[in-house]
């Protein structure tokens, strides 16, 4: 409890027990947060980003054909400006390609996006891979 007198605030000497409970819970949470980050600092290995891409859906779009995918970064390093290219492969030849850039793919996280082709790939193989990134 705080006493305000003539614009000066003095904290009460014998506070209510609620204040101590809140204080202890807060201290515990702050400690947990610090412990978690410290663990991360300990584990950090500085390995470069590792991407894996998984196609999650496909279907007709207004002006072509949409292939949706998730891109995951397993490493503890975040990548920025990640360029993803998708190709429709027809008998070893690239029939069409499309490209998209992710602003960020955070460490140990997943982002999702979609590539738009002008034609339906049908039974042909759709190949999606990352072709580059920068450090944030």
């Amino acid at each position, binding site marked *: 409890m705080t006493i305000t007198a003539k614009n000066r*605030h*003095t904290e009460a000497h014998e506070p209510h027990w609620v204040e101590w409970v809140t204080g202890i819970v807060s201290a515990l949470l702050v400690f947990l947060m610090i412990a978690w980050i410290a663990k*991360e600092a300990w584990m950090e290995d500085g390995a470069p980003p590792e991407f894996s891409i998984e196609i999650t859906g496909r279907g007709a779009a207004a002006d072509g054909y949409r292939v949706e995918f998730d891109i995951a970064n397993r490493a503890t390093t975040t990548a920025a400006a990640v360029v993803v290219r998708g190709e429709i492969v027809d008998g070893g030849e690239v029939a069409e390609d499309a490209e998209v850039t992710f602003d960020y793919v955070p460490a140990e996280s997943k982002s999702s996006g979609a590539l738009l082709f002008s034609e339906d790939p049908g039974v042909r193989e759709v190949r999606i891979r990352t072709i580059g990134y920068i450090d944030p």
Partner: protein
Amino acid sequence: MTKAGRSMGRRHRSRHFLIGLGRGAAGAMIFGIPMLMTMELWHLGFYIGRSRLLLLLLVNIPLLVLLAHRIGFEQTFTWREAFRDTTIAYAIAIVISAVVLFLLGNITAEMPFSEIIGKIAMQAVPASIGALLGRSQLGAHRDGDEEEDDKAEKKGDHDIVPNEMSTSYGRELFLMGVGALFLSLNVAPTEEIILISYKMTPLHALALILLSIAIMHGFVYAVAFKGTHELSEETPWWHALFRFTLPGYMVAVLISIYVLWTFQRLDDAALTQVLMSVIVLSFPGAIGAAAARLIL
């Protein structure tokens, strides 16, 4: 009272009310302009999830009512008056946001209606806090000490002497929350918060947590600003750290999580990444929380 006297009284009252509106508008501008000129907030106006925007708008109402009750446009005493002040402040904020966004060429007649509404609604939240604070902080004290004394006398039953006012613990935490929310809303939508959290290593984050807590504590207890809180001599310094500063930091952290979630900055991110962004945002949040304890 004569007829002339009555009409003069009415004129005086309406003048008083207009001055109040003007202060509210000034407050909305001072607090709202940085956000009205932030690109990310314009974009948020149309891409923010409508359910999250709705929640933010609804959460803002009780927050304003409590704030109005605490600091008041015109020395608010009853909840009804607090509610009235809230409505006026929110309305001022909506009008100011709409006018400024229009002047800056950010809303035009060709835009879809939902985009216009989204942009205004987004901006009205911080501006409404500004409008409330503006009316109380920009010169409501001109009525002088008499009224202050009146207020102190009318206040609560647990007062020790008429001139002393006890701020309850919950209210203290609430004020910290408002301060943290205000500064968080200012910076959370910018891409920099996310970018900073990606650039920082966990060691940077650890240092930032400790610095945030130290600044919060120092602001309120060590550096002697006006309104600085004091500890009585026999109270050890760590009492205040546990009872006020750490809970205050936790309030800033919770507000940061809520704001980042509202602005869709946490979706799909791993726990560590979430925590890093929250720590970054809690830094300004902590300063806001400490400042609110001093100013409000």
